[in-house]
């Protein structure tokens, strides 16, 4: 027993001596060799099980060299120790994803990446075009035709960008199926990395902000709003779906420590740093998502203000005073009040019915008003009927007056003719013989 203890003590002393006298260069080289070995295994791995097992190797590498982190941070070049481990982890996640996609979905990662690259390039070129179009919009204020053309092109540009950004998001998420809850944590990490690489959240924010700017700098007409409302609603709905997925991915990243093997991770300072890093990335995603929400709220507010303000201006321009409105219910109430007042008074409803309602509101604003988010199709139809009836009452009264006039004239004629016929024949005057 004593001998065993002595041997153990000797071993420990030798180990300590060996550690104490280890060459820094050898330490660095050993780390680099093990790093290269794992990296090379990852490159040649063909099954997800193989890659899963290499995760443990990465954790072991990190744990073994964590006591030398300070030295390795300086000695390794150009990456530090922490960056090297993070790079290896990222490689492991991407490799897992690559193998998984090929094996389960038949999708090649290279094809996915190529599609993402093509979409982001198209989006970037549209962004460049957008800047030019905003410039043209400023210049073309003098001519109404040129202004309308610039508005049309800018609006089309923004709509194309909306479609592209969500096409990018779809490209990232679609290979994993509809139910993200069934996707493994490693895939979620891969999705998270791809979202970060393509800058999806920032791009969504920029596009929403572009739309706000567009509403700010453009004088819109009633007929423009139909498309704009549709565009906003589609964007909001798509964003809601995307946000849910992003939150899911971010929550997974926050829950899974980078150094975890699933069997209890080594709590080295580096491992703790890794968790912190991922938590920070997840927090960043949450903050960015909140920014998108706030710019969408702004977009909604501008759209509403522009729409209802523009509609109110139509009333003012036509010289018709109605109670102020700023949403569907208040607009409906104002119109109903005005129609009731008009019907009760002896005023001529024609300026309101013909000039304002039929020529302006029904022609230019109906599409926008019919949207559920504004007034709704049913309520618009009800208001239209109400206004039409006001017009019909007027027509009936005139018609009745005409009929009455005609009847009076007919009666007079008849009386004259009748009296003429009924006049008794005068006996011939007596002649003196």
């Amino acid at each position: 027993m004593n001998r065993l203890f002595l041997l153990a003590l000797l071993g420990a002393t030798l180990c300590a001596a060996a550690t104490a006298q280890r060459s820094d260069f050898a330490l660095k080289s050993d780390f680099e060799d093990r790093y290269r070995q794992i990296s090379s295994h990852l490159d040649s791995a063909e099954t997800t099980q193989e890659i899963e097992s290499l995760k443990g190797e990465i954790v072991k590498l990190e744990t073994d060299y964590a006591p030398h982190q300070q030295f390795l941070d300086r000695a390794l070049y150009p990456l530090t120790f922490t960056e090297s481990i993070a790079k290896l982890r990222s490689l492991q996640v991407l490799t897992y994803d690559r193998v998984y996609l090929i094996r389960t979905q038949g999708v090649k990662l290279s094809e996915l990446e190529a599609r993402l690259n093509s979409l982001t390039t198209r989006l970037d070129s549209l962004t460049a075009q957008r800047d030019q179009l905003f410039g043209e919009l400023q210049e073309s204020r003098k001519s109404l035709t040129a202004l309308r053309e610039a508005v049309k092109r800018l609006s089309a540009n923004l709509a194309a960008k909306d479609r592209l950004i969500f096409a990018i998001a779809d490209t990232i998420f679609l290979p994993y199926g509809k139910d993200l809850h069934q996707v493994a944590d490693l895939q979620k990490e891969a999705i998270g990395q791809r979202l970060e690489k393509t800058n999806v959240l920032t791009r969504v924010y920029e596009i929403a902000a572009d739309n706000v700017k567009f509403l700010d700098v453009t004088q819109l007409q009633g007929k423009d709003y139909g498309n704009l409302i549709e565009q906003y609603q589609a964007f909001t709905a798509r964003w809601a779906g995307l946000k849910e997925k992003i939150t899911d991915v971010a929550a997974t990243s926050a829950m899974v420590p980078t150094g975890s093997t699933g069997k209890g991770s080594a709590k080295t300072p580096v491992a703790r740093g890794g968790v912190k890093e991922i938590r920070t990335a997840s927090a960043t995603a949450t903050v960015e998502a909140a920014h998108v929400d706030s710019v969408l709220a702004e977009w909604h507010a501008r759209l509403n203000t522009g729409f209802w303000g523009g509609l109110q201006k139509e009333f003012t321009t036509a010289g018709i005073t109605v109670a102020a409105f700023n949403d569907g219910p208040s607009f409906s109430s104002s119109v109903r009040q005005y129609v009731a007042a008009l019907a009760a008074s002896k005023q001529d409803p024609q300026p309101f019915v013909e000039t304002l309602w039929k020529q302006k509101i029904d022609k230019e604003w109906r599409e926008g008003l019919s949207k559920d988010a504004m007034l709704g199709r049913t309520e618009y139809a009800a208001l239209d009927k109400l206004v039409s009836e006001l017009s019909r009452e007027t027509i009936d009264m005139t018609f009745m007056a005409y009929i009455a006039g005609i009847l009076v004239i007919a009666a007079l004629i008849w009386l004259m003719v009748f009296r003429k016929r009924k006049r008794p024949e005068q006996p011939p005057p007596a002649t003196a013989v």
Partner: protein
Amino acid sequence: MIRLVKICLVPAALLLMASCSSLKLDLVDFGWPVESVVTVTSANKIEDVRYSVTAWVAGLAQEEFQDSTALHGAKLRLLRSSEGYYFLTGPKFKHVYVFSPGPSSLLLNRAIPVSEVGLRNPALNQRTPYVELLDGDNFHTLLTSDDIVEVKK
């Protein structure tokens, strides 16, 4: 009047020149975190890629082995201390050479004798303010730019 201007200008110029020449940046740390293992080429050159240092070592081979071609293919250990001296040694060396940088040259500061039979597999570690020399498990020496500070065998 001109004389007065000259009298004023000359001390001003001297003061300016003096202030320029006395400019000195302190607390500079030249130390490399880890030594470079450099292979001597057939042209007797060594090159460190990370720090972009190249040197011709025929003179060193002549000095240590009395043969200017003795170092061909040898792996030398090069480390810059925090003070800015270059420490250079290698297998079979009996000395650690300490150089200070000069204009396009390394000037020998001191050749510190470290082994009577020659080192087998030496390594240099940065242990500010010293440089540590290891050779196998049982050879451990701390060096300054001038001498050996501590030996453990």
